[in-house]
């Protein structure tokens, strides 16, 4: 039985709760010598917490990566948009009768250049989670993305996508409106672009729902994000008919950023603050911005035709197989 995020984080959360309580006690303490004692104790606990985080995150296993990538507290697309860009104007609608809030997008300024942003968006409150369908995008989300990709191409704006989805919506409604076609068409559209495209996997890169907006010239992953052909629970349930063996499946699937780089499937890892992206949002946003500027800087040197070819060549070489001539 694989640990849940709550179980895995419990010792840390308890430590942090203890520190908060100690601080409250210290704040109210009148006696200076007692307060000093208490503050020493707090420092001690904080050091212990830091060491604990060090240990927890020093060598995250694949399943722990899954837990961290899915954590409620993790920054979502709009957190990055707000911190990294300015003047973002969300544009909505697939222009075909439907709208989706699990994928958001629109133009924004990255320093002094306009870019087109597209990203999965999970919700924080219960209402927002429902509105955003828990990050499971519907066909209309991908069709909106296609419209924004076309706009980016028309107005020569680089495309930046943020990937964070457990997978595309697989329900009856989504199927009846062609979720497969929508994903395929979005991938197809990205390969048409002659403007640069950069994707950042910020949390969960969940199978088809992820690649639908990640067919970019550069694909970067946050240190503790995951990118997988299938959810580990789904894989476990197919392989062993035991959905609770997600941890074993996560290991088998090699879904970490580190593995993706080893297989040359992503271009770089963006380091996270100690203890994960949510522990220092300004820092992770700064890191993401640096990585985006660096990727765009490389792509800016290319002409439109070369940008198109670069993207094709990037994906063309993916695949590991033998031929009779030896690999």
């Amino acid at each position, binding site marked *: 039985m694989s640990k849940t995020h709550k179980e895995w984080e419990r010792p840390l959360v308890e430590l942090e709760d203890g520190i908060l309580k100690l601080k409250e006690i210290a704040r109210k303490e009148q006696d200076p010598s007692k307060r000093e004692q208490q503050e020493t104790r707090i420092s001690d606990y904080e050091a212990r917490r830091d060491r604990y985080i060090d240990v927890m995150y020093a060598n995250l296993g694949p399943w722990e990566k899954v837990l961290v990538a899915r954590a409620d507290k993790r920054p979502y697309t709009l957190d990055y948009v707000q911190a990294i860009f300015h003047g973002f104007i969300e544009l909505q609608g697939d222009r075909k009768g439907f709208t989706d809030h699990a994928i958001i997008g629109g133009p924004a300024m990255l320093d002094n250049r306009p870019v087109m942003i597209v990203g999965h968006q999970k919700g924080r409150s219960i209402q927002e989670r429902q509105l955003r369908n828990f990050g499971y995008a519907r066909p209309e989300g991908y069709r909106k993305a296609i419209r924004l990709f076309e706009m980016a191409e028309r107005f020569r704006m680089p495309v930046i996508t943020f990937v964070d989805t457990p997978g*595309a919506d697989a329900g009856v409604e989504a199927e009846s409106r062609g979720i497969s076609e929508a994903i395929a068409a979005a991938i197809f559209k990205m390969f048409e672009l002659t403007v640069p495209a950069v994707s950042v996997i910020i949390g969960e890169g969940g199978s088809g729902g992820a*690649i639908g907006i990640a067919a970019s010239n550069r694909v970067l992953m946050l240190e503790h994000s995951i990118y997988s052909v299938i959810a580990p629970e789904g894989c476990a349930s197919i392989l062993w008919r035991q959905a609770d063996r997600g941890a074993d499946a996560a290991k088998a699937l090699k879904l970490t950023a580190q593995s993706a780089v080893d297989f040359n499937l992503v271009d770089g890892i963006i380091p996270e603050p100690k203890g994960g992206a949510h522990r220092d949002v300004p820092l992770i946003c700064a890191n993401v911005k640096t990585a985006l500027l660096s990727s765009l800087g490389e792509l800016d040197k290319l002409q439109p035709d070369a940008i198109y070819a670069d993207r094709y060549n990037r994906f063309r070489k993916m695949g590991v197989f033998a031929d009779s001539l030896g690999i």
Partner: protein
Amino acid sequence: MSNREPNKAEGFLQCAHCKKIIFSVDFEQNLSVCPYCGHHHRLSAHKRIEITFDPGSFSELDQELSSLNPLDFPEYAEKLASAVEKQQTNDSMTSGTAALDGMPVSVAVADFHFMGGSMGSVNGEKITRTLERAAESGAPAIIFCASGGARMQEGLLSLMQMAKTTAAAQRCSKAGIPYIAVFTDPTMAGVLASYASVADVILAEPKALVGFAGLRVSKQAGVGKVPDDFQTAEFALNHGMIDRIVARKEMRTTLIQLTRMLGGTSTRVR
């Protein structure tokens, strides 16, 4: 899903759909379509090629490609070896060139019998090469799909085949070369959500299973009730996702007509 293969016995077999007994000879002559209920039973790639393209015109390419186990995924090597031995081929996809009423075409034909037609690195590479050969030579691409989806044993490498194959389809489109996909039973998940759905024309065999997720997953995910024909070719047609349902015995003629009209004329400006 129930087993869709007919149960074979000496000289005759039982339709897995209507359970009627059919003489093997009749079944063969009827292109593995049940003469009683019309059920289109799955075909091997070999048989499909034989009944679709000009006799003797098929030249196989890429057959030397074979799968590795880059992730060292549990049990993958064994499953692969067993499939290779049983099916006497390296992959579910057979690719090459052929002729259709004399017109050169670049083709790939899937065989569900080989590991459920799943798309790993070899499968994706063959699709990609088939579409690239079309884009480069000007010969229209024809792909018969049959797949349960991506091959999870190759992890992210498999997911990337969705992008790679779709990119190759975009090349075809950009070059103005027709690409026709035929959905056979089943065409699902990662294959449906990539190169299969971006073809210029999409045909399907009657009653072929066509869908994104397993029926169980769809039922869990959805709130509405599931229609009777959910995830069939007929459902896909009614929801605008495919162009036509074509019976197996009409398939060759339809492909010839389409190929001729969309890309087989000599007056075409390239």
